[in-house]
C-alpha cells in the first residue's frame, strides 16, 4: 500500500515495457499482464516503487514485460527474493508472480512459509495446471487422470494440490481466485490484494492454450463466489475445501499483523558493538 494521494496518475501503459512476450498467441498470461498493469495504475504506484519478482516458467517471464523493477530469478524461488526485498525496503510495493509448477511444486515450501510469515506482499500465481515452459508435464494442480503428459501417460494418480486451502492452512492473510479471461475483474482482485496488509495470495486461472487447449472452456465454468469473504479461518477452510475450483472473487480476508522486523530508532555505531569483546 503506497500513499496514493500525492502521486501523479498513471495509465496501465506506463507499466508496460517494450519487450515482446514469448508467450503463445492466446495464452492467458497476456491478460494477466494487462490486469497487473491496470491494478498498478488504479493504485497510482510509481513504477520505480514496485518490485515484481518471478521464478521460471512461461508465466514467470512476466516481469520483463513490465516497466517496474523486475527480478526473473530461478525456478521456485520468487517468494524468498520478494521477502528479502520487502523486509529490507519496506516502502516498496512487492509482488511475486509465477506459475503453478514454480509456486506449488518446487516452490511449495516457500509458499507455505511465506503465508505463515505474512510479509506485506502479493503473490499472483498463473495457474494452468501444467508445466508450460517444459512442454506439458503435470503440475501439482493437474487432475490425477490427465493423460496427455509423456511423463505420466497414465495420469499422475495423485490428488491435486489445493492452493487456496494450503494458503489458508499456512496462514495467508488474503486469499482470492480470479480468471485471466476477466481482465478487469482480475485487476480489481489484484488491487485489493496489494491494498490488503500482509501476505495476499491470488490464484489466477490462466489457460495454457498450447498444452491444455481444453482450458479455453474455463470461461464458461468460472462463476463469482456466492458469499462474501469471511475472516474466520475455520469457516473459510470448510468453504474452500468444498468449492469447485471455479469460484471467483475474494475468498478470505484475515487481519493478522504483517511481519516486519522493527528497526531501532536510535542506531548504534559498529564501534559501540565492539565493546563486548574488550577484556
Amino acid at each position: 500500500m503506497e500513499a496514493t494521494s500525492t502521486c501523479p496518475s498513471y495509465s496501465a501503459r506506463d507499466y508496460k515495457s517494450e519487450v515482446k512476450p514469448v508467450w503463445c498467441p492466446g495464452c492467458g498470461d497476456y491478460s494477466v499482464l494487462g490486469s497487473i498493469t491496470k491494478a498498478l495504475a488504479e493504485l497510482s504506484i510509481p513504477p520505480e516503487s514496485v518490485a515484481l519478482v518471478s521464478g521460471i516458467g512461461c508465466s514467470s517471464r512476466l516481469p520483463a514485460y513490465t516497466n517496474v523493477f523486475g527480478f526473473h530469478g530461478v525456478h521456485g524461488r520468487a517468494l524468498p527474493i520478494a521477502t528479502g526485498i520487502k523486509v529490507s525496503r519496506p516502502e516498496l510495493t512487492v509482488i511475486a508472480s509465477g506459475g503453478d509448477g514454480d509456486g506449488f511444486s518446487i516452490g511449495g515450501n516457500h509458499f507455505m512459509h511465506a503465508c505463515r510469515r505474512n510479509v506485506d506482499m502479493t503473490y499472483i500465481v498463473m495457474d494452468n495446471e501444467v508445466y508450460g515452459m517444459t512442454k506439458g508435464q503435470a503440475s501439482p494442480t493437474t487432475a490425477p487422470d490427465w493423460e496427455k503428459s509423456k511423463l505420466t501417460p497414465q495420469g499422475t494418480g495423485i490428488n491435486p494440490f489445493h492452493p487456496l486451502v494450503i494458503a489458508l492452512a499456512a496462514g495467508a492473510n488474503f486469499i482470492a481466485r480470479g480468471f485471466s479471461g476477466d481482465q478487469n475483474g482480475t485487476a480489481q482482485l489484484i488491487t485489493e490484494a496489494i491494498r490488503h496488509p500482509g501476505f495476499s495470495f491470488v490464484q489466477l486461472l490462466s489457460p495454457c492454450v498450447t498444452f491444455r487447449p481444453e482450458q479455453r472452456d474455463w470461461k464458461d465454468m468460472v462463476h463469482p463466489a456466492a458469499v462474501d469473504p469471511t475472516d474466520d479461518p475455520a469457516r473459510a477452510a470448510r468453504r474452500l475445501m468444498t468449492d469447485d475450483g471455479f469460484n471467483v472473487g475474494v475468498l478470505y480476508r484475515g487481519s493478522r499483523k504483517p511481519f516486519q522486523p522493527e528497526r531501532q530508532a536510535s542506531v548504534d555505531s559498529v564501534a559501540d558493538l565492539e565493546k563486548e569483546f574488550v577484556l
Partner: protein
Amino acid sequence: MTARSVSITFAGSGGAGVMTAGNMLLDAAGRAGWYAYMTRSSGAQIRGGEAAAMMRLSTSPVQSHDDRFDVLVAIDWQNVGRFSAEIPMTSDGLVLGDPDGGEFPEQIGAKGARRADIPFKKMAKEIEGGRPNMIALGAVAGLVGLPEDAVLGVVRDSLAKKGEAARTASEASVRAGMAFAAGLPACPRLAAAEGQSERLWSITGNEAAGLGAVRGGIRFVAAYPITPGTEVLEWLAPNLAKLGGVLVQAEDELASINQIIGASYAGVPSLTATSGPGLALMTESLGLAVASETPITVVNVMRGGPSTGIPVKSEQSDLNIALYGLHGDAPHLVVAPNSLADCAFSTQWAVHLADSLQTAAIVLSDQSLGQSRATIAPPADPGFRAIRLMPEGEAAERYRRYTNTASGVSPMAVPGMKGYQYTADGLEHNEYGTPSSAAADHSAQLDKRLRKLAVHDYGQHWADIEGDGDIAVLTWGSTTGPVREALERFRASGGRARLVSIRLISPVRPEQLAAALEGVARVLVVEQSHGAQFHRYLRAHYDLPGSVRAFHRPGPLPIRPNEIFRQLADWS
C-alpha cells in the same frame, strides 16, 4: 623453566565445568597481557557429555595449537579417553587428575607423561560451595604462573550476577588450587607478558566474521542454522538490530540465499552464513547472483565432509565446491581468512569486493577458526565498505543494466530510482537485461563477468607473504597458523623459507604468485583435505616453479607445526 607458550587441556565429564574453567583461564591470561587461544571438543552426546577445553597461552599472538600439550588436567576421568587422539603429549607432559575421579583411561596412560594427583572432590568438599573446576583453574594458573589478581578478577566479574556466596566459594576454590599447585611437579611457566598498551579482545572466529560483515556494511542477513556456521548468525542477530539492520530466519538455505539476493537487489548489502551441506543447497542460486550480477556474501564455515560428515570438526574440504560448485561458467569470488582474527578482515574485504564487483563472494572459514576463541590485539577497521557503482542523474534513454563497460562493472540501479527500472535475469541477456540466446550476447556477457574479476586491483591482500629463501610453503586458511609456526622453527634451525598464504582463492592471481615465488626451487603445498583439493587447484591455475610436494590429510585432527616442519626438514 619459563616458556613463551604453554598448552593446557581441561577435560571432564558433562557438568564438570570444563568450558567455564577454560574460558576463565583465557580471559585471565588476556587481562594479564598474555595471548591465549582455546578450542573445544565434546563427546557424541548432543549436550552435557564429556568435554575438553584445549588451551594455549603465549607471550606473543597465538591463534593455533602447538604440537603437544604441557598439562592435561582432568576434573574426572569419565570418558576422557575419547579425547586422547586430540591431546598429543610427550613424557615431559604432566597429567593431573583426581584419584577419586573414576578409572584412569589407558589411552592417556599410554602417552607416558608424568602424573600427579589433585583430589578435586575432596578439596571441594572442604570449601563451602567449593567447585572442582575452579580448583583446577587455580591449579593451572599457579602452575603456569598466572597472577592471582587476574584470575580472581575474572572470577569476580563472571560470577557478578550469581551472588556473594557463589563468588566467595569460587574464589576460595581458585586460591586452594593455586596453593596446591605449589607442591605439584614443575611444568613450563609462561615468561612475563610483553607490555600491551591496548586491552586485548576475547573473540571467536565466527564473531570476528560477524564483525567484519557489519564493518563492511552488511545490514540484511538471512539465516538457517548449521554447525559450525550458526554462531556467525547468532552474533549478527542482536548486533544487526542495534545497527538498524535486519536478520530473518529462513525456512531453509534455498530461502536464505534467495532472501539475500532480494535484499541486495533492493540495495542493502546482504550476507548469510552456512556450512558444507547448506552451501551445496545454495549453489544454484549463487549462480543466479553471478548471472544477474547481484552482490551477496556467503560465509561458509567448513566442517568434515562429505555429506553430513563430521559436523563439529574442521577440514578444508569445501574448497572444490566453493570454487567449482556452480553450473555453467560462473566466475565469482572466494576469499579465505587465514587466522581467527583474519575472519574479520577477510569477511569485510569479501563484502566490499562483492558489492564493488557485483557478484557472489564466498568466505571460506572453517570450524577451527570459527569456533575457537583467542585473545587478540583489537583489529583496526581497514575501511572496506560495500559500495556499489550506481547510475547517476536522470535516465536519458532506456537503462542498460548490463552495459558492457571496460571494467566489466556496470552501474547498478536499485528500486526507487526513477527511470532506471530493469529486470534482473539469470537467463543469458543483452545489455538491457532482456533474455537473449544470441552467441554475441552470450560471449559479451561471459567476457564481462570474467573481466570484472580479473582486472580489479586487489592490492596486497590477495595473499600473506612472509620470509624469503628458495623454499616456499604454499597454503591457505586455517593451516596457515601451523605453517607459520613450522617455518619459524625451520628458520630457527638455520633454514630459509617463505610462506605464501593465499587469501584470494578466486579469481586466481598468476602473475602475483609467480612474483611471490620468484627464485623458489621447492614448493611445499599444505592443506587439510583428503583429496588434495588445494594442490589440484594450484596445478590447474598456476605454474609452480621447481619441485612441488603436497602435504595433505583430512580432519578431524588439526595439522600440527611439527608435521609440517618434518616435511621441510626431511626434504633433502
